[in-house]
């Protein structure tokens, strides 16, 4: 007993209200892991401006390509808008220089013409602006829509092993927050930037035409502006990246707390989580602070340079007006233009971060889209013979995880195996013996490292996705449920199934009874990934789903582990009927599940060490299965 939990009492009563002082410094909670955490966060080049990767550039080009005519129209619109808007100060200047003297002479014609021109310019500019804003919206949303669909479809094509490596959290953030970043860019600042840049160009030209010397002063001011911008962009890139990293950690902590709320509350982790969250929250604040402080220097800096340049123009221009070398209207127009000239530069700072995040997001998306499915769809699929017999053959199959790692883990060695059509085979062995790997190879979640897996003589990698998964269905342990009703979830097995067929499938696996007892029966919403249902109930629904699919080969990967015994017995009874005429592969820790098998394979460290009918194996002296069976009988009492 001395080594047991009831051994020596701890030195202090743990119920002393000892506040929140964590014994382990909060920084140590995360532990170590070797994957480069930011392998996909490094998209933003460390020095200088955000510059798109070739992949991202190609992606951007591909996305815009279908809309290139629209984009050209947009450019024409914005040029038109800028020109009509820019006409206003010029017209006002003319009103002062020409309209006023004429009016003083009692001739109001010039003034009226200029007023009319001003009104026309404003109206046309407004009209062009409206069309431009609408069209950017339409094109932008169309591009986003295409991108969304493309990334979604692509991630769904990528193999399970990719998903396991990449982790669901990151896939979800690609598809949600990263695309959202692009939407924000389109939403707010893209048209603004376009206008700013064009404004600068058009105004420069107009000013040069009006008075080259004054224009020169305005243009010289662009040099310190450029230097300021270079300084800002270099620092901003680094600082901004830190905010992305710190917010990612914050979100992980937040979401994991919510998804694991039962464990959090049951194990009183709240204060500890508070402490961890505080650290992450403060890190995020500090990272943001850095970025905002850069803005606090850059934006007033732009204002300062702009104001000094304006005052200089006022001084020199005023001097020349006083000397009689310059018309007052020209000076007025200049002063009006200068406001439009420097003002938008401040927007560039705000835009710059949107642009940076959008660049980073686009690069991350391009990286995902660049992933080749490791189980690629065949270019020319071979059709399966009809009806599918369901014979499975492993030809010298070898499988290793993490081929790129230093020590690839070989899970299967040179496996040769033939599962005849209609046979029910049970796989038995310790955790890590390779049972699940065999199942995943048959359902082509992975491809073998060496050798071939064949269904009815056709290599799996020559079959179309739909053909393969119509023939082979795997029921996994987790019994994932989608939001929607119970009936929807069963119908997932065969879209378009009638209600009667759905209920029939539920009945076949013995799920009907509990489903009927649910608040709305088959129409009960399963809520939040079936959280309301027990694990066993979820598994039963997953079973019904697979039965409805009616595949030639059915793989049960621990599919009955959470069922209670009567349900399992019922499922097994159903299985005897359902598996009739079907090939089946059953992976189970429980020997009870194995009872219905025609054949048992005992696996050890990636090799088949025993193969035979259950009866034969039980009779094998010193056999591993025989030993397991004896132990199991003992456990039944």
């Amino acid at each position, binding site marked *: 007993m001395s080594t*047991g939990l009831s051994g020596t009492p701890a030195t202090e009563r743990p119920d002393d209200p000892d506040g929140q002082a964590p014994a382990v410094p909060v920084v140590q909670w995360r532990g170590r892991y070797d994957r480069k955490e930011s392998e996909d966060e490094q998209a933003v080049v460390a020095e200088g401006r955000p510059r798109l990767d070739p992949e991202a550039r190609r992606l951007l080009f591909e996305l815009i390509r279908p809309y290139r005519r629209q984009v050209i129209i947009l450019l024409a619109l914005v040029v038109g808008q800028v020109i009509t808007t820019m006409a*206003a100060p010029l017209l006002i200047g003319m009103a002062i220089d020409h309209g006023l003297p004429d009016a003083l002479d009692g001739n109001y014609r010039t003034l009226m013409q200029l007023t009319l021109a001003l009104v026309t310019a404003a109206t046309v500019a407004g009209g062009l602006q409206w069309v431009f804003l609408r069209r950017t919206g339409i094109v932008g949303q169309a591009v986003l829509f295409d991108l969304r*669909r493309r990334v979604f479809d692509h991630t769904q094509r990528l193999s399970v092993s990719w998903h396991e490596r990449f982790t669901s959290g990151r896939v979800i953030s690609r598809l949600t927050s990263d695309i959202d970043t692009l939407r924000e860019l389109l939403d707010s600042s893209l048209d603004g930037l376009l206008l700013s840049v064009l404004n600068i160009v058009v105004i420069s030209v107009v000013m040069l035409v009006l008075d080259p010397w004054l224009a020169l002063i305005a243009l010289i001011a662009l040099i310190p502006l450029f230097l300021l911008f270079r300084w800002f962009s270099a620092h901003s890139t680094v600082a901004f990246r830190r905010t992305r990293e710190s917010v990612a950690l914050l979100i992980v902590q937040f979401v994991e707390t919510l998804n694991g709320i039962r464990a959090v509350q049951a194990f009183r982790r709240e204060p500890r989580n508070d402490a961890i969250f505080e650290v992450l929250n403060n890190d995020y604040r500090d990272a943001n602070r850095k970025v905002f402080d850069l*803005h606090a220097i850059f934006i007033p800096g732009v204002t300062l340079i702009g104001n000094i340049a304006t005052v200089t123009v006022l001084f020199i221009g005023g001097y020349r007006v006083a000397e009689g070398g310059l018309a007052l209207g020209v000076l007025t127009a200049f002063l009006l233009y200068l406001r439009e000239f420097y003002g938008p530069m401040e927007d560039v700072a705000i835009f710059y971060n949107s642009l940076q995040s959008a660049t980073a997001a686009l690069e991350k998306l391009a990286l995902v889209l660049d992933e080749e499915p490791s189980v690629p769809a065949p270019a020319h699929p071979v059709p399966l013979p009809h009806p599918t017999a369901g014979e499975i053959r492993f030809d010298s199959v070898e499988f290793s995880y993490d081929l790129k790692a230093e020590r690839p883990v070989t899970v299967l060695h040179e496996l040769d195996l033939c599962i005849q059509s209609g046979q029910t085979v049970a796989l038995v062995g310790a955790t890590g013996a390779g049972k699940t790997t065999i199942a995943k190879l048959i359902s082509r979640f992975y491809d073998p490292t060496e050798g071939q897996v064949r269904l009815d003589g056709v290599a799996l990698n020559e079959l179309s996705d739909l053909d393969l*998964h119509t023939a082979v269905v795997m029921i996994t342990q987790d019994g994932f449920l989608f939001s929607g009703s119970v009936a929807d979830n069963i119908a997932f097995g065969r879209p378009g199934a009638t209600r009667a067929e759905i209920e029939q499938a539920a009945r076949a696996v013995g799920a009907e009874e509990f489903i009927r007892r649910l608040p709305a029966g088959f129409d009960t919403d399963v809520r939040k990934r079936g959280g309301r249902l027990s694990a066993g109930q979820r598994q039963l629904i997953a079973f019904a789903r697979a039965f409805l699919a009616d595949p030639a080969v059915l793989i049960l990967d621990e599919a009955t582990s959470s069922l209670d015994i009567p349900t399992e017995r019922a499922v097994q009874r159903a299985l005897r009927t359902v598996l009739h005429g079907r090939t089946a592969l059953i992976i189970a820790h429980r020997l009870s599940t194995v009872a219905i098998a025609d054949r048992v394979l005992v696996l050890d460290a990636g090799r088949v060490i025993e193969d035979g009918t259950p009866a034969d194996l039980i009779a094998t002296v010193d056999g591993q299965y025989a030993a397991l069976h004896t132990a199991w009988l003992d456990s039944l009492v």
Partner: protein
Amino acid sequence: MALGADDASAAGSHAGAHASVRDLLRLWPWLRPYRGYLIFMLVVATLAMVVQSVLPIITAALIDGPIARHETSGMYPLIGLALLFGVLEAVLFGIRRWAMNISSLAIETDLRRDFYQHLQRLPVSFHDRWSSGQLLSRVTSDLSMLRRFVGFMAVFVVANLAVIVVVLAMLIRLHTVLGLAVCVVMLPLAVVTRYFERRYNIEARRAQDLTGDLATGVEESVLGIRVVKSFGRRGQLLQNFTGDATRLREAELGKNRTLATLWTIIGTYPQLVLAGVTCFGVLAVANGSLSQGDLVAFITLQLRLNWPLMAMGWLIAGTEETVAATARLFEVFDTASDITDPPSPVRLAGPWNQPARLQFSDVCFRFPGAAEDTLHGLNLDIAPGETMALVGATGSGKTVLTSLVGRLHDVTGGAVKIDGVPVNQLSLEELRRTVSTAFEDATLFSASVRENLTLGRPEATDEEVAEAIEIAQAGFVHELPYALETRVGEQGLSLSGGQRQRLALARAVIGRPRVLVLDDPLSALDVHTESQVEKALRRVLGATTALVVAHRASTVLLADRVALLDGGRITAVGTHSELMATNSSYRNLLSQDASQDAQEVSV
């Protein structure tokens, strides 16, 4: 989930419809500590904008004074003044931003911290209703909306109003009739702006909900990737996704249309007014009621109105969005936990590490919104140190029964008692220290193994951790790249179901619990590991009171007695062999006798 989203969005739009700017006052407790900064920002921002408006006046003075008189020497003082104000404006801008950075980020951070802390303490039933995505968007986008409002918008609403008033006053001073005319003509802009802002808000809300729907679809497609793959349903999912994305696009385009119209009006209208001002201004100069310099000043000043007026539209939009965001935050803040500490908690008597008595007396439980009780009038008495197995058919309520002990759910009738004290009279801290639960699905966090084991007890000693690992046969953790420091979970090394379950078991026994609740602790273990874990478990169970949900005879055999849960009640209690001999429904549940099976099949 879908229902949760509906609930939330219904509640949200409800809140949005009835929320008013007054609701922003509820943020005051979080603003209070930074009120000094906020007032400072307000003053500086207003000052900066006033300074901005002075420049045209100086320009007018220059034109009418030295320039008109051709006295270039008279220009210097005025140019110096203009330069001074130009520099001052920039400096004030910088100071305002500095104050904004400190205060608005601090307020956002405080709010986020409090939101998280509040969420952690809301009951499991709340979290079953709300998806993490919905809550995440509150803690990210809604909060940054609030930050922008506090740091920027609120200040500019005031500062811009000040500028508008000051500029209008100056315009009236320059030329009374023309100035007043500008005032009157500018008014409709506010009305039109308001109309479009409201429309935009409704559309934005809808787009946000649709974004949430899309995110839910994405989440499921990724988390359920194995199911999708094994049924080859990529096409169907893409079709659903396309539907969601199309609806979202429509909503976004609706937003775009409203915004385009608004921006066009806001941009064009002042230009039209400017045309009028130019025309009548020139006429005023012609008839001598305005000087030439004042005309330039008038025009420049009138242009100064453009930005604040345009910004007002945007600020009103922002304010209304902030009101909605605030409403969404308070929707959660206002949810009080119904599982809280009692006003005057009873403390458990007896030595802290001795097994306690666990009783269920007349326990009833009904899920919120369910039509009937899951448990009705359940009685069970587990003596100190005893291990009770709980057996029942799928869906009989075993899991919910286990969650009642640690008050993850509260009973709706009767009481669960520890050493005679109803659990709701204990402080949650004491209760959950006394009771330890291993859940069926073992949640791992993206943290080190050690952190995952100790969870709420960072002060656990290395010996305690090692012991718990040994008991749960989780020795594999020593083989991991960094042993106990290895990060596991979503962001780290992924572990198999059996490994996760052993960690969950180790996690449960590490707390030296007086009461141990195990929900089918061995379901994902293979036969070898299971027998090892069983051996180790026997040692633990000898020293604690335990309730073990069991599906298998082998698990039942860990227990001293077995309780049969049927129809929401305990229908039989006894030893395994007693019940096997006397109770047919128990036999039916636990007998794995193949012959019985065969008979049933042959019938």
